[in-house]
């Protein structure tokens, strides 16, 4: 929930980062062309802070892209009380540990929930 909210907040920054990087590319090209035509070192001097800014934006943007949110899947393991046959499956909830859950497909014995757990997978925040 909060991770989704955070990713939603951060996702809003993606177009701003792209716009800022494009602007830097244009300004850099403009400064380089001006330097070539005028040979005025002032243009090159301006390039240095601009490149630092570009590096900072690229670093922040890459961190944003690398960000992952956790997605959980829930599993339950049921085991036959007679023959020990086991089945692993997903559950949506209301699966109670050590409660009976159906009959064994092999020997018709009682199947009991012996394990319930969640597994985490990571998903990128950009769609």
């Amino acid at each position, binding site marked *: 929930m909060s991770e989704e909210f955070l990713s939603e907040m951060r996702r809003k920054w993606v177009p701003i980062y792209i716009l800022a990087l494009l602007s830097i590319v244009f300004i850099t090209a403009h400064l380089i062309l001006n330097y070539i035509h005028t040979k005025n070192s002032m243009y090159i001097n301006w390039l240095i802070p601009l490149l630092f800014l570009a590096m900072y934006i690229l670093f922040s943007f890459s961190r944003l892209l690398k960000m992952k949110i956790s997605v959980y899947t829930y599993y339950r393991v049921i085991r036959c009380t007679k023959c020990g046959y086991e089945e692993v499956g997903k559950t949506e*909830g209301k699966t109670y540990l050590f409660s009976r859950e159906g009959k064994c497909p092999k020997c018709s014995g009682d199947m009991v929930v012996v394990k319930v757990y969640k*597994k985490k997978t990571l998903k990128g925040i950009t769609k």
Partner: protein
Amino acid sequence: MDQGSFLDAIIWFVMLTLLFYLNREMEIMRLISEIERYLRLYRATRDKALNTTLSEFKSVLARHGEHGVDIKRLEERVKSLIELVFIEPVSLDPYGIIAKLKHLLRSSEKTLRDEVSRMLPPATEVEVENLLNLVSATQVLNMIYKTVDHIYRIGRKFRSYWILMQLSALLPFITEEVRALEGAIDAFTKGLPIGDSVGAIVAAKLLYDHGATEKVLEPVENTVVGELSLDGREVVIVKAKGPGGTTGRLDDAIRWVFDRYRGDINAIITVDAALKLESEESGAISEGFGVAMGGIGVERFNIEKLATEYGVPLYAVLVKMSEEEALSVIDEKLFNSAEKAVDIVKRIITERIAPGGRVLVVGVGNTIGVTP
């Protein structure tokens, strides 16, 4: 060389002072924007928890048929439950504080349970317990949001750098707690075991492995007691009654066991989840002495008193986990640790209790999703 006029010096000092002032103002603005970002997150989490709680109440109602329940009134009542407060007893004179705390806790629990049952007459016991847990988690989220917001507003109102700075320093810890409660909302909606259920899982697994699940008694409300035999030792198991999300009344149940066996108990082993330090691994198991039990301390106090009265040694088995893991649905690693903890409990029993002895194993923690 020209060293500048007196006016230049004054201007330089003014500029310098202005720079310091602006620097501090900018820092305050940065802190305000950072705290506001966290506050938005807490508010979103609180609102989501409230909506989940409301929809869970409605879905329970839908499952059983509405039975003439006014939905609008139900929503209003749930919202007012979220604002409920628990006033701790006065502790200026600490004599008798435990009894007072226990009375307050029990009466507030009972009143809330009755209230939810009245709101949803057809709801089962398990559903009522899970709804109470949802309400309780939402209450805490609401309180966290309101407290942080209060401190933020005071800090902003007085432009207090230090108040804002202290709040900002605490935000990572508060966020951890908010995340943990968020996980709890998910777990209580699904009714699946949580990390804090490891104690209950260990107790239930011991009962299940020895075929004693069906023979448990409920001598005390929401708490079950079962018996089994392990390598010539008699093992009495106490745990909260599942699969509803409750922690039971373990101290009362232990008192019942002591009365039943006239104090003839050789040891008490408590199994519970414990908060890990950042450097510790989740699922690590620690053994120790004493009562492994969290909460306000009322039940722990009563168990310690009883054990001291009868001279019974207290052993503890702790499964380490983070706060987030303790309150969200249990993961495979923690579940495997619970299974390992069962072996450790068995080893403690065979090593420390002589054959023919009797030992009490207490599965501490919320028993959501765990039967019996």
